[in-house]
Each structure stands twice: as structure tokens, then as C-alpha cells.
């Protein structure tokens, strides 16, 4: 593979250019789902369960159906006639097969679960009708605790299984037990990560239009993965993929929530076909908080065998994850990755894991930005625990365990290979910037005065991209490839498309830069079209920080391929035997004569005109036109790394945590657009801080969700977050196009670990270690009260 042009340094890649998509969004002309006007569209709304676990005995909708403007009320039995169930039965050891109908028929599994769908001429009328439907439930025992859920006598969330333990997988390197048994020091650490939700500011929504004449379904939906979504909905409606168009217009955030085909969306699409018209649905915020998708509820324990210097000899990991009531993804999908990449930047030869995933009567879980984020908190919390136990400086424990430059590529105990990262360098750089030694002295002096400040360090190795081989080896179904096309129109206008869909990441700008770099034109001359399955080629969508390497990398390769064809035509037009001494730059053909590059008179427009309108002048055997298609499957995994340094002050009287400084030293390889990359790093880091300090989906013991508004489910405001300083130490990946690595999740990972460790460090004089999130003022006060 040609990784770099070789003739020039990058000009379009790395350019700090403002985004081209901004214009419509700054002027109120974006087109999100609700902005799309479909005359005559009917409105759907859903009846949802007030119980966590209950049998549906009967649904009486007569009065509602008689309301003017109500078209009909549809139940699980109706939908079962029009759609197939979702069967999740990957052939993975330890993962139990499960199946769910489009709407529940006999029982509901969580507070907010679906019961029926109302269709009316207006959203207000649909919601009025909702009040008139009488549903008779018989409440069942709610399963709300992932440990008790595993008890023999527990009620079953899914009666087709004989247990709530839906996935259980273990792994051990050959000698791990022997090394564990032979150790003097075993350090046990717990981590409890609470339930969260993605909270895109635009909730879910869909418009489905059935063209009864053409028998074609057109869907507007905010999705991160338009093509897999189309495959899924076509399959569930027994349509051919060629009968379905999925269009994902401007999307108001996704963060992992907009990947799966949800039951509400499938219901709306099926009703559009049944009613032979357009049906639309806009989720309200209450529904979004209760029933869209949740994420992250894990309990973790590590046992670290160490020597007297704090050197890690062996590590075992236990995870129990609460997956909620339904599997929209294979149950091992999230926890398994945590286990596979756990050790991050640290050397570890002997390793074992035990990963259990449990069904409960809560909203189903899915991937949320950095689903493996807890790895950083686990490893860095374990490093701090080792330092506390042995009375060592936490930095020294990290130094002694960290993989050094000359040890890469490094094969982790789980079998994954780390390469082209520099965690030791980013850590040392950050330590010197913050003046670590001086901070420790100042901290001691502050403590004398009753001021409790803490320093938290978190070294992140961020798994990015996820190529097909990783999915295969992790036992997760799916592909990691991406595809793109470049079309140069007869006038020389350049269009590009990539299969991935955007939810705010600036792909239109970044992919224009990538194609421009490959082709040799100005990025502003490249128009990118994404999110429409009729236009963009089949790709696997936006997730797992794959936009840069898979999306941008494929776009770059497509640009290079287009340049190759352009130059072959140019060579013929210039009467040269070969294009070896030609290149494209700013839309013009350049020629090298005796190491000297000069501009020729040929432009991209000249070549395009020839390709389309004068094809007899093309090289022998070349097809007319100027279009290329490229697909690319990245390496099994690419890795970026960073070191986060967080300084906090804890007010021991109020439990308030305030930030004194937040520094990130990072390496994400070749950067497509520094402005966009920094924006992603800001967003990810603040999302990590938010999860650690603020957000919490709370269920009571009956399975009632107590956080159904933004006054209850908190995310930070501008007044709550620190200013982030970011220092770059980029080294390219040697195996990816242009050396791109990806980076949009590492900030979450770094923040979770750095903030937790900083608060623990601040409260060390009280013997308090944070082992549970979120670290709210109430939680801290409770810890402090118990200690005093």
C-alpha cells in the first residue's frame, strides 16, 4: 500500500480549516429529522410500561380509537404479523441466544418498555389518545440487582433462558494461577461504574414513507450507521435492501445511541407500509432518558500480584455487567473488549479474566462513546492501589511497569498487539509540564492548612478503528471495513462519498481533506455526500473512533486512486510514456524534470473533459469517465495514546470537587484536521468528567427509573467544566493510510481515571479511595462522614 505520496509533504491533511458543514448549522438551515416536512405524514407515539416487570393481560383502546384524528392503535401482535423478531444468537461460546419481538406481546421488561403504538394525524392528538388507552398489567418480581439476578431463585427477565446470566466468558494465560499462588503481595481493588445514557441533544426520531406504487420504503432517521441499518430494517420487514433507502440528514449527536435499529423505528416503518402513507415519530426527552439506550453498568475487581518494587507479575479481572432487559447487541460486545485491552500501556505476562453479563429489568444497554473506557480507571486505579499498598510514589509504579519505546510492537497477554504508541513519553512530558515534584510539595503544605488537593494521572491506550480481524478474534459479529468513491464530473467538479454517517464529527470537512490530499486538489473543491444509502457506498458506520482511519483512510486511498487515473490520462495528453514523473497539486498537473517540479498547462478540468467527452484520446483500454471506488479493511486494531493529568480541590465540608488544572498530552498519529481533532478531544474528555461526577441513571428497588428529566439526569454546564490544555506528541501509525490512528474516545477513558485518582489522592489523608461512580457531593460527604 502506498502510505504517503512521497513526492510532497501533506498539504490538505493536517490543515486547520474551519468546517464546511458549519454554514447551514450556524444560520438555522440544518436539516435534522424534525425539520423535514412531509405533507400528510401521520404521527406515532408509544404507550410505555409504568412497571419494570409485568405481564400484559389486556389492552383496551376502544375509547382512544374513537377520538377524532386517531388512525389506529397497534400492538405487539399486529407488528408480529408484519415484521420478524430480532434473533441475537452469535456462535460465540458462553453467549446465550435471545430473541425479541418488534413490540412486546405478553410482558414488559423495564419501566418505559413498549406496549402499543398510537397513530394520529397530529402529535398532540396522539398523546391525548394515549391517556385513554387502558392496559391491564400483572406486576412480576422486578430484577434490579445484577448480583441477586444470578441467584437460583431469581425471577427471569427472559423466560426462554434458564438464568439471567446471558453471557459468561473466561480466559487465562497458561501460568497465571501458578504466578498468583507464588506471590507475596496480592492487591485487590474494586471499581463500580454506574449506569449512564448517551443523551444526544437531538433525541431519536424517524420519518418512514411507503411508496405503494414502487413498493419502496424511504426512511429519514438519525443514524451512525446508515447501511447496516438499512440491511437490518429490510430484513425485519422482509423487504429486499433494494426496496429501502435510508437517509441520515444532520444528526444532533449520537455517541453510540444511534447505531441499532430500535423497536420504535421498526414499528413506525412497518406502520407506514401497512397504512400506505408516511408516518413520523419524535421521541421526547422523558422517553429518551427512560427507554432509548443506556450504557456502562459494571462492577469490577482486579487482583494484582506484585513484587516489592510494585512490578506487576500477574493480574486477574472480574467483570459483572448489568445489560438491562434486552440485547440490541451481542451480550459480550462491550465487556469483552474491556477484558481484551485492559492492560493498556503496562507490561503484563500473566493475565486472567472472567466476564459475566446479566439481564435485569432495566433499559437495554448499548455502546456509549468509549464503551471500554473503564479500562483506564481500572489499570490506573490499580497502579495507585499498588503505590498505596507499598508506600511508593504512584508515578514510580507506573514507570516500572510501563512498556518502553524499544519494546514495541508489544503483544499483550490477551493476544492483541500494541504498536506505534509512546505512553512513556507522553507521561514524562506531562509530568514535566505540570511540575509534578513541586506539586507534591505544595500538596503537603496545603494539607497542613486543611486544603485538600489531589493529582490524578491516567495513561490511556485507546483502541481505535476495529478492523474485521479484531471482531473475528473477539468473537463479535461484524466487519470493520469502509468504502468510498470519488467522482470527477465532466467540468472537473469533485464529489466524494464515504459509507460512514456523521453525527457532528465534521466528516464532510475531514473527508474532503482526505480525498483532496489523495487527489491533489484544494479541500474546498471536494463536495462530500454521506448518510444516504442510495448515494454512498456500503460502509460500517461511525463507532469505535473509526471515522479517522476507516473513513478518512478510505477516502484518502480513493483520492490516490483517482489521481492515478487522472495522471495516466495526463501522460497520454502530454505524449509521455509514463505518469511516473507527474503529480496533481491544487487541481493542476505538475511535471518533474531533473528533480524540478513545474506546473503544466493541464488542469483537472481538462482531463475530466477528455475522460467524459473525448474518450478516444484516453490511453488504450481505459474506460471513459472518471470515477473510482475503493474499499479498505484496516488493521485488526489501531491504537492512540494519551496521558491525562488532573488537579482537583475537594471541599471536605460540601463534597464539591473543583478543577485546578487539566492537561492532556496525546498521540493520535497523523491528524486530518487539528481543529476538529481538538474538538473531539474536548468533547470526549468532558463526557468522561461528566460521567464521573454528574450523570447517573437511577432505578429504585422496584425498577422505577427516577431520572426522567434533565433536572434529574445531570450533565455539566459550562460553569462546571475545566479548561483543557492539550499538548501533541504525534507519531504516525506505520500500517494505516497516511498514518492516521483515530482518537474520539480516549478523552472519556482519560477523564474517568484521572478524575477518580485525583479525588482519591485529595482524600488520602482520610483513608478514602474512590471505588464507585459518580463522585457526587452527596457521595463524598457520605464517605467523609463515615471516616470522621
Amino acid at each position, binding site marked *: 500500500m502506498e502510505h504517503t505520496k512521497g513526492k510532497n509533504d501533506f498539504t490538505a491533511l493536517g490543515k486547520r480549516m*474551519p*468546517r464546511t*458543514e*458549519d*454554514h*447551514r*448549522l*450556524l*444560520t*438555522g*438551515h*440544518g*436539516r*435534522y429529522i*424534525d*425539520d423535514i*416536512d412531509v405533507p400528510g405524514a401521520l404521527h406515532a407515539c408509544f404507550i410505555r410500561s409504568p412497571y419494570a416487570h409485568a405481564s400484559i393481560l389486556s389492552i383496551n383502546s376502544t375509547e382512544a380509537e374513537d377520538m377524532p384524528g386517531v388512525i389506529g392503535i397497534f400492538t405487539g401482535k399486529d407488528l408480529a404479523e408484519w415484521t420478524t423478531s430480532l434473533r441475537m444468537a452469535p456462535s460465540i461460546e458462553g453467549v446465550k441466544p435471545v430473541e425479541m419481538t418488534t413490540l412486546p406481546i405478553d410482558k414488559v421488561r423495564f419501566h418505559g418498555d413498549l406496549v402499543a403504538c398510537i397513530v394520529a394525524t397530529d402529535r*398532540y392528538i396522539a398523546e391525548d389518545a394515549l391517556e385513554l388507552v387502558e392496559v391491564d398489567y400483572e406486576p412480576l418480581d422486578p430484577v434490579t440487582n445484577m448480583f441477586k439476578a444470578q441467584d437460583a431463585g431469581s425471577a427471569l427477565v427472559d423466560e426462554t433462558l434458564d438464568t439471567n446470566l446471558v453471557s459468561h466468558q473466561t480466559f487465562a494465560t497458561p501460568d497465571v494461577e501458578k504466578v498468583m499462588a507464588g506471590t507475596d503481595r496480592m492487591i485487590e481493588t474494586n471499581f463500580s461504574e454506574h449506569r449512564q445514557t448517551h*443523551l*444526544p*441533544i*437531538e*433525541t431519536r426520531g424517524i420519518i418512514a414513507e411507503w411508496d405503494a406504487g414502487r413498493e419502496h420504503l424511504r426512511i429519514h432517521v438519525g443514524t451512525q450507521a446508515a447501511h447496516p441499518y438499512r440491511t437490518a430494517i429490510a430484513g425485519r420487514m422482509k423487504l429486499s435492501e433494494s426496496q429501502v433507502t435510508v437517509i441520515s440528514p*444532520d*444528526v*444532533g*449527536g449520537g*455517541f453510540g445511541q444511534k447505531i441499532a435499529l430500535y423497536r420504535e423505528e421498526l414499528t413506525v416503518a412497518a406502520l407506514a407500509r401497512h397504512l400506505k402513507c408516511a408516518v413520523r415519530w419524535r421521541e*421526547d*426527552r422523558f422517553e429518551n432518558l427512560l427507554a432509548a439506550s443506556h450504557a456502562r453498568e459494571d462492577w469490577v475487581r482486579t487482583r494484582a500480584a506484585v513484587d516489592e518494587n510494585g512490578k506487576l507479575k500477574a493480574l486477574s479481572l472480574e467483570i459483572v455487567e448489568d445489560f438491562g432487559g434486552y440485547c440490541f447487541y451481542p451480550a459480550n460486545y462491550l465487556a469483552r473488549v474491556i477484558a481484551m485491552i485492559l492492560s493498556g500501556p503496562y507490561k503484563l505476562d500473566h493475565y486472567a479474566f472472567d466476564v459475566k453479563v446479566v439481564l435485569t429489568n432495566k433499559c437495554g444497554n448499548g455502546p456509549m462513546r468509549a464503551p471500554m473506557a473503564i479500562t483506564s480507571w481500572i489499570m490506573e486505579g490499580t497502579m495507585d492501589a499498588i503505590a498505596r499498598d507499598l508506600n511508593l510514589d504512584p508515578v514510580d509504579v507506573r514507570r516500572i511497569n510501563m512498556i518502553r519505546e524499544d519494546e514495541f510492537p508489544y503483544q499483550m497477554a490477551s493476544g492483541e498487539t500494541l504498536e506505534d504508541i509512546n505512553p512513556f513519553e507522553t507521561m514524562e512530558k506531562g509530568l514535566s509540564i505540570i511540575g509534578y515534584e513541586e506539586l507534591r510539595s505544595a500538596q503537603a503544605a496545603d494539607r497542613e492548612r486543611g486544603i485538600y488537593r489531589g493529582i490524578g494521572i491516567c495513561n490511556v491506550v485507546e483502541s481505535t478503528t476495529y478492523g474485521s480481524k479484531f471482531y473475528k478474534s473477539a468473537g463479535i459479529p461484524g466487519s470493520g471495513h469502509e468504502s468510498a468513491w470519488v467522482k470527477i464530473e465532466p467540468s472537473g467538479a469533485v464529489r466524494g462519498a464515504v459509507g460512514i454517517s456523521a*453525527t*457532528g*464529527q*465534521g466528516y464532510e470537512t475531514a473527508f474532503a481533506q482526505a480525498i483532496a490530499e489523495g487527489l491533489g486538489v484544494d479541500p474546498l473543491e471536494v463536495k462530500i455526500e454521506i448518510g444516504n444509502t442510495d448515494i454512498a457506498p456500503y460502509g460500517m458506520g461511525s463507532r469505535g473512533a473509526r471515522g479517522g482511519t476507516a473513513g478518512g483512510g478510505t477516502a484518502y486511498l480513493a483520492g490516490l486512486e483517482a489521481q492515478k487515473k487522472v495522471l495516466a490520462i495526463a501522460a497520454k495528453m502530454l505524449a509521455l510514456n509514463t505518469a511516473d514523473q507527474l503529480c496533481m497539486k491544487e487541481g493542476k498537473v505538475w511535471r518533474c524534470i531533473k528533480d524540478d517540479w513545474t506546473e503544466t498547462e493541464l488542469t483537472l478540468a481538462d482531463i475530466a473533459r477528455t475522460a467524459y467527452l473525448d474518450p478516444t484520446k484516453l490511453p488504450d483500454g481505459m474506460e471513459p469517465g472518471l470515477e473510482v471506488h475503493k474499499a479498505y479493511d484496516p488493521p485488526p486494531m489501531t491504537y492512540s495514546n494519551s496521558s491525562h493529568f488532573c488537579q482537583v480541590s475537594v471541599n471536605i465540608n460540601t463534597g464539591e470537587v473543583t478543577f485546578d488544572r487539566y492537561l492532556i498530552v496525546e498521540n493520535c498519529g497523523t491528524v486530518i484536521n487539528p*481543529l*476538529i481533532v*481538538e*474538538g473531539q478531544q*474536548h*468533547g470526549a*474528555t*468532558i*463526557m468522561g468528567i461528566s460521567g464521573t461526577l454528574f450523570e447517573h441513571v437511577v432505578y429504585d428497588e422496584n425498577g422505577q427509573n427516577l431520572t426522567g*428529566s*434533565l*433536572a434529574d439526569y445531570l*450533565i455539566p*454546564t*459550562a*460553569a*462546571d*467544566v475545566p*479548561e*483543557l490544555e492539550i499538548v501533541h506528541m504525534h507519531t504516525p501509525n506505520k500500517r494505516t493510510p497516511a498514518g492516521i490512528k483515530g482518537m474520539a474516545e480516549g478523552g472519556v477513558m482519560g477523564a474517568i481515571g484521572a478524575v477518580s485518582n485525583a479525588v482519591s489522592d485529595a482524600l488520602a489523608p482520610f483513608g478514602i479511595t474512590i471505588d464507585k461512580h459518580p463522585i457526587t457531593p452527596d457521595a463524598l460527604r457520605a464517605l467523609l462522614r463515615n471516616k470522621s
Partner: protein
Amino acid sequence: MKKVAITLNINNRDVDMLVEPRKLLSDAIREDARLTGTHVGCEHGVCGACTVLVDGKPQRSCLTFAVQTQGKAITTIEAVKGNNDGYSALQQALHEEHGLQCGFCTPGIIVTFEAYLKENTNPTEDEIRDVLSGNLCRCTGYQNIIRAIQKAAAVMRGETPGAAK
């Protein structure tokens, strides 16, 4: 519910509409006036995405009934612009400083600060953070929005803003 005929003045234009008294201003602006730049993020007054100006003051259009705003001047994102129909200083600064990602919360932030920067031409960073706390953004972490507001304020004061902080 019986509909009533009302006239709303939106962006200096009178719009006649027939609405139920319970119709939210946000829905009237979006559905009846067909101005979809005002976004609805929570429908309970927390996220701030639906903020519009009513007689020059920021107001949550999802907590306001359309009928309440007859006779008042409503300003939405579609009316925000600079000289020669280009960007306002704030729009320009948000563009340059990458102060938006998905863009869904952006209109609410812009109209809030178009009003605030007229009231306080030289806000401190703390004041900006305080006012911005009425608008939730899930993408940016707020940092670039704050930079952009500082930059726009400087431009509006006639200063040449230095390099971004």
C-alpha cells in the same frame, strides 16, 4: 381543542396562524411559520436549544404558549446575520473557533449571546460560563464556544482579537 386565530410577529414578519391555545411557541415557530432553525431538545426548559428572543430577551420557546406571544417581537436564529447578510461576529467566531459540532444546540446559544453581548459588551470568562450554563451542549465540552464568545465580544467592541487563548 378549539383553535384560535393569532398573528405572531417573527423576525419582523407577521405570520397568521390557527392554533390550539395549548400549542407551544416552539411548535408554532417550527410547524406554522416553517422556521426550523429553532430546535427542541427537551420540552421541559432545561437544555436551552429552543431559546428565541421575545422583545429582545432570551426565552424558552418550549415553555411558552404561542398565544402568549401575540403583539410581541419574536426573533429566531434565521434573523441573525451580520453586514451584507454575512455572518454576525458571533457566528463568524463560532465557525473559526470550532464552537459547534452536531449543531443542534447552536441556534439557542447564538440567540442567547446575540442578546447578552449587547447587554454586556465586555464579559469576563466567568460571566460567559454563567450565562452559557443555560444551554446544554453534549459535543463540544464548551471550551471552543467560550473562546468564540470572547472573540466575538472583542470584535464587536472594535478590537482585533489576538490569537486564540
